[in-house]
């Protein structure tokens, strides 16, 4: 049943005041400033550059896109789509530096496999082959490495991929934090599949495949620095099967993303910018586990920005949203899927949220990691 949310506040009578006009001028000026090519101002890399927010985007555009610019890279999607002979192939790579290496619900090994599998899956590809590169710190326990490799083996089997090539490097004690893993993957893209956030258009619906923020909160708590305990575990999982059943059931899927670093909010912003549309979501509709909400509330961070490792965001033709929801919910990994919002014509480039309280606000990209507030 579709319904108008009752929580829309009384529309505020708005006279056209000179103040309002001046404010709008400022807002327009800001939007113009935001469209300019970002400049990298820092002289050194800071932790913010790795957080997946604005600082990461600026770094990628100012350094990497600038150096490597080509039409395959430019869309900055999770995987590049290439023609190899007659076949369309998706190629992606991802590095894993998670700390701690072992956490409730998984470890760096299954994360490294699932992360790359998911980047291929959301590009509409069937994941096939993976590479694995290891950077190990002198002194790292072999027993731990065995556990990690076994987890990778199991995750690869579950996702139907094979690790077919690899590399091992060891660095001196102190030059790395135990074990880092890089994986790259290739997958086959079926004819006619063309997913990308730039395809979003007004009227489309936005879905998530399950409760958000589980992985990020699990990692924060597993670091043991917070003295908070909660019954929550990482959602790390391979999404290829879920994607295949969604694409099989719904022709009108425009884009898929897995909501990793930067969380769902970052993806919604990428949709709004890439497609020159607005994105409007409803806080009441977003599935978040109570444990995750509670921990995030205590820390003063927003689950919308917290990483998931087994959740996708789908942009679907509005007329087929119910079908898409049913298709997702039919799979165990999508059992708690939800329609969380829609693509709108205005305001262009902005993500807005109707809060549970009944107000409206922006959901912007964060600069870096969400910082806990002091009071």
């Amino acid at each position, binding site marked *: 049943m579709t*319904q108008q949310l009752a929580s829309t506040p*009384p529309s505020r009578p708005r006279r056209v005041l000179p103040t309002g006009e001046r404010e709008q001028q400022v*807002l327009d000026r*800001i939007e113009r400033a935001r469209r300019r090519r970002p400049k990298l101002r820092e002289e050194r890399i800071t932790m913010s550059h790795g957080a997946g927010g604005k600082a990461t985007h600026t770094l990628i555009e100012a350094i990497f896109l600038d150096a490597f610019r080509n039409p395959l890279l430019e869309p900055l999607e999770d995987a590049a789509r290439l023609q190899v002979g007659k076949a369309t192939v998706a190629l992606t790579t991802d590095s894993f530096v998670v700390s701690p290496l072992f956490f409730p619900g998984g470890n760096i090994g299954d994360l490294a496999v699932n992360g790359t599998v998911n980047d291929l899956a959301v590009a509409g590809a069937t994941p096939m082959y993976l590479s694995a590169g290891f950077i190990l710190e002198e002194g790292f326990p072999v027993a731990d490495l065995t556990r990690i490799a076994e987890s990778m083996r199991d995750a690869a089997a579950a996702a139907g991929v094979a690790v077919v090539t690899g590399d091992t490097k060891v660095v001196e004690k102190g030059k790395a934090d135990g074990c880092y893993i890089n994986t790259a993957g290739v997958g086959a893209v079926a004819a006619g599949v063309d997913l990308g956030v730039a395809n979003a258009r007004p009227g489309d619906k936005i879905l998530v495949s399950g409760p958000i923020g589980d992985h990020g909160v699990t990692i924060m708590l597993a670091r043991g620095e917070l003295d908070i305990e909660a019954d929550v575990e990482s959602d790390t999982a391979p999404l290829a099967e879920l994607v295949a059943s969604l694409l099989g059931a719904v022709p009108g899927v425009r884009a898929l993303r897995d909501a990793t670093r930067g969380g769902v909010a970052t993806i919604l912003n990428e949709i709004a910018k890439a497609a020159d549309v607005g994105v409007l979501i*409803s806080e009441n509709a977003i599935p978040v586990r109570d444990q995750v909400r509670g921990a995030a509330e205590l820390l003063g961070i927003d689950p919308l920005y917290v990483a998931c490792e087994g959740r996708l965001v789908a942009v679907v033709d509005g007329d087929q949203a119910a079908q898409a929801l049913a298709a997702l919910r039919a799979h165990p990994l999508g059992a708690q899927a939800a329609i969380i919002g829609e693509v709108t014509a*205005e305001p262009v480039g902005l993500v807005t949220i109707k809060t549970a309280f009944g*107000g409206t*606000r*922006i959901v912007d990209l964060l600069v870096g990691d969400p910082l806990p*507030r002091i009071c």
Partner: protein
Amino acid sequence: MRFVDEFRDADKAHALAARIAALCEPGRQYKLMEVCGGHTHTIYKHGLEDYLPESITLVHGPGCPVCVIPMGRVDDAIHLASQPDVIMTSFGDMMRVPGSNGAFFDANARGTTIKMVYSPLDSLKIALANPDKRVVFMAIGFETTAPSTAMTVLRARAQGIKNFSVFCNHVTIIPAIKAILDSPDLRLDGFIGPGHVSTVIGCRPYEFIARSYGKPVVVAGFEPLDILQSIYMLMLQLHEGRSEVENQYARVVPWNGNPVALKAIGETMELRPYFEWRGLGFISHSALKMREACADFDAELLFDVPGVRVADPKACQCGEVLKGVLKPWECKVFGTACTPETPIGTCMVSPEGACAAYYNYGRLNRQRVPEAISIEPSRP
């Protein structure tokens, strides 16, 4: 979720909004200041202004502890962190506050070790785990966080921890409010009083505002309904011509404050003769330093602190924003030169800062947002 969702009930908000609107006298404009940055954050995060009639303007006050730290103190802290064998600890939202040569994050990229902690007590754990290092806690905040710093120092003393000290930047709320009340360019009708500070100092210290300045004060909680109810209570006082201190946050704030917390502060800290506030300048008796009895834990005595003074950037109008004279977007550099990525003024740094809150959450022409969203709510 219990104890959260009850305070975010949209139906109750509608009812309160109607009662607030009914109290507005035609033609009169109301300016209410929320003193505390936590309130500013709540107001924007939940879109609370959508419930207010146009004649009520919320002015965002100076109660963001990160925002009022002058650049010179950030430079001093980085200088401290650059000393041999020093690990500095700091609350998270201090990490991006710019000094004259970058913020803590940038200092770390140049080689300092400044670690984020969630409680000052975590600094003691770090000190115990690193006996060959000197751990300095960058203490900031109003009376809200001062007791936890005080307790940490008392515990360090009790446990005989020698490699821990505090770089004390605690400030007190009353002198800041007084500075604002005495500011000639300001007209306010009432105050939404800070909630967390008042759990420590209680409600009595605000009585002079009602008595001497004739402005009503309502100490408020941090959920959106708390704030809406406080606005209603303020409007009711104004409507009835009263100016009193009222406590909306009685479920947490005792009228006389928390004597244990106050005692801990008193045992370890004392008022400084004066302290520089970003944007507001020097205010006398507005900050705390370590007492002589705690000299062993006073980083300002243990280390050579240069006492850097840096003028606020000329283009920055944080002071006017903090006093509520300017709205964030009225600042010359707002959103163009000064953004959350590259903040010039501290109002842009912390999510509690008025400018950052407006930029992150409120930068929006509401007429362009569709009124309703037509989706099926899936959360029970």
